[in-house]
């Protein structure tokens, strides 16, 4: 079973690195990280500041969308070109297939993000506009975790969607909901609720939006937790400890586990038919 998963992962990586989309996304992400570097005219950067705040947000605009599209297209592609039909005639377990695809795509995304980060750090070093190492590692970890969680979401999209066009539509909708429409929606909905409900509701909802979850984690770890206000003081204090990082990793694992589990269940049901 593990062997099968490795085979699928290698196949996925090969397909991923043959896919022109991956290279255009890699180019886009790299270019974009360089642009951020150019904006940073103040020189060296440390902690939560305008440049790191901007970086957090711009990564949040671009990376989830890229991930959702790559992941969802990969799954619907297998359905559309018949390779899933072919594979399911072999004694291959659906779980091996799903996990293999997830691992393969995770490596593709890892390469994509690492290329952008590597390029910008080297250029920053040469031009003297670099980031402090701690801040850099935090932003890098933030990007990787963001990619992993949205990859998990993209698997659900790829499972539900019948073809690539549908996948594209759903991916953009999910992206818009999670990144752009999030606070307007919550403000509108929670604004009608009694005041005491707002904070607990936001706290729970945040767990269901990987974009917000990782953004808040990054802001707190960069030392900007106090800007979130007195209401979240205990949260912020907790996240700042090493326990906070462990909690965040558990949250990522739960996200990835739950949505690949759900994906597996849906594929298995489809295969049984």
């Amino acid at each position, binding site marked *: 079973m593990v062997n099968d998963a490795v085979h699928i992962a290698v196949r996925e990586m090969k397909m991923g690195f043959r896919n022109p989309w991956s290279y255009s996304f890699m180019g886009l992400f790299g270019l974009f990280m360089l642009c951020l570097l150019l904006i940073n005219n103040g*020189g060296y950067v440390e902690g939560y500041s305008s440049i790191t705040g901007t970086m957090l947000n711009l990564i949040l605009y671009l990376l989830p969308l890229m991930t959702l599209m790559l992941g969802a297209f990969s799954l619907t592609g297998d359905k559309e070109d018949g390779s899933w039909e072919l594979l399911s005639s072999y004694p291959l377990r659906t779980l091996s297939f799903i996990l293999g695809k997830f691992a393969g795509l995770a490596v593709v995304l890892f390469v994509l993000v*690492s290329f952008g980060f590597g390029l910008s750090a080297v250029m920053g070093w040469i031009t003297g506009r670099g980031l402090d190492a701690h801040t850099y590692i935090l932003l890098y970890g933030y990007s990787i975790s963001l990619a992993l969680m949205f990859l998990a979401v993209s698997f659900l999209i790829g499972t539900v969607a019948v073809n690539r066009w549908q996948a594209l539509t759903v991916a953009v909708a999910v992206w818009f909901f999670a990144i752009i429409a999030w*606070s307007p929606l919550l403000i509108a909905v929670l604004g009608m609720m009694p005041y005491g409900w707002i904070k607990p509701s936001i706290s729970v909802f945040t767990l269901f939006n990987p974009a917000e979850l990782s953004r808040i984690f990054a802001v707190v770890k960069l030392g900007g937790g106090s800007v979130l206000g007195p209401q979240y003081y205990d949260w912020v204090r907790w996240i700042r400890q090493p326990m906070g990082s462990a909690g965040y990793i558990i949250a990522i694992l739960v996200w990835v586990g739950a949505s690949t589990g759900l994906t597996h269940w849906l594929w298995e049901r489809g295969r049984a038919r």
Partner: protein
Amino acid sequence: MSDGLWHSSSSWCRCDMLTRRRNKTAILCFTMVAAVLIGQAIISVSTAEAELANTTSSTGELQALIDQAHPGERIRVPSGVYEGSLILSKKITLEAETEGSVSIVNANPNTRSVIHIAADDVKISGIQIINESPSKIPALLITGDRTVVENMNIQTASQGIVLEDANDGQFRSNIIQWSDSAADRAVKLFDKGNGIDLYNSHRNIIRDNTIQRVHDGIYMENSDDNRLTFNVIEHSRYGIHSMYSKGAVIQNNQGNFNYTGAMIMASREVELTGNVFRKQSENVNSQGILIFQVQDSLFKDNKVIGNRVGLYLEQSENNRMENNEIANNFIGIQLLGARDNLITGNTLSGNVTETLAQDSANNSLDRNYWDSFQGIDTDGDGISNIAYAINPFFQGLIKERPAFQLFFQSPSMVFLEGLYQADQNTWTSDEEPLMVPLTSDQTSGQKASSTASGLIGAALLILTLSILQWARRRE
């Protein structure tokens, strides 16, 4: 630095004690070969305690010396550790024979203070005060005028220097710290005492002092025309705290890692210039400079860097804020119900959000530099032809419902703010924003090597390219 001072001054007695203790033990070993080990231990401990008592004397003798002195006399205190408290009730000069070798230790909670200066024109210098009393008694209580306190080293578990109705004094080059041993008791910041506390005390000069880990570094209440210059205050609640005071001159001080650097409340005619407040960012209520209900004051040439809020101005009128450098804060300037203030020539750069403002349209907020604003200068006079307007949406939202502060600068909040454009004429705005900053020195950009991140980046690039190469070769 100050820790070193404190150790060097007190360590001699400990060393002395240790060597004697060793000697005694050795003698005991030779003479009492057959002694039981437990008995030996008991004897050596008790002799050590006796030795310690010999090196420490009571303040009684010292007090007698002071009481016998003629007014105007200079008393040089011999080196040693003195236990107890002192009252200086006549005009004398009290100084350490050798600076830093005299310690006055008090752990008795039933005294009014460790040293009480009750007369005018007293001068005290070079003495260490260790105030171990857990009740709120001051290390140095001053109720006389024209007192001079210099080169003192105060380690306190409650208050530092307290001035009550004491005028025209001078407080120079003192070190005031929360006592190391008291720190072990895990006291909350709000239970600590103040470094220098002025009540109804006017025209004092407080200069070159270092104050660490206390409640408020320098606290002034009902105290007018005091001059605070070149003090360094760190890891305390508020660095400088002024309440109901007038005419304070606060110049060239430094505040780092406090809850708030300078908190000026219900005060008038304050001159706060040339100070540097860095990294007041840990607490949810942290600010570089907080100004609340303050009138007719000048805030000029200050640097507020890396704080939660750089400059916070609420319910204050007729103040001038000029040429301040407000950089790398989470929020640059926050204005709430501020009217008729002149805010000009300030440089705002690298702040996560430059300004939050509400109900503060009637200020003259012109000719500042905002680095996130892209102005257009058609006539080349260095001033943008388009105005910089501060969107009040987020400030309004979090004032009504603070829970939404979690969305601070999130992409969706930035998007929503962009949509909100109503009543632009009531927004706080800079009609003539500067195209280049007035203060152009780069103190705000922490220059340091980015070699580490560069190397990590290079490693990532190599890793990426080799994965790519490997994947292509397998095709």
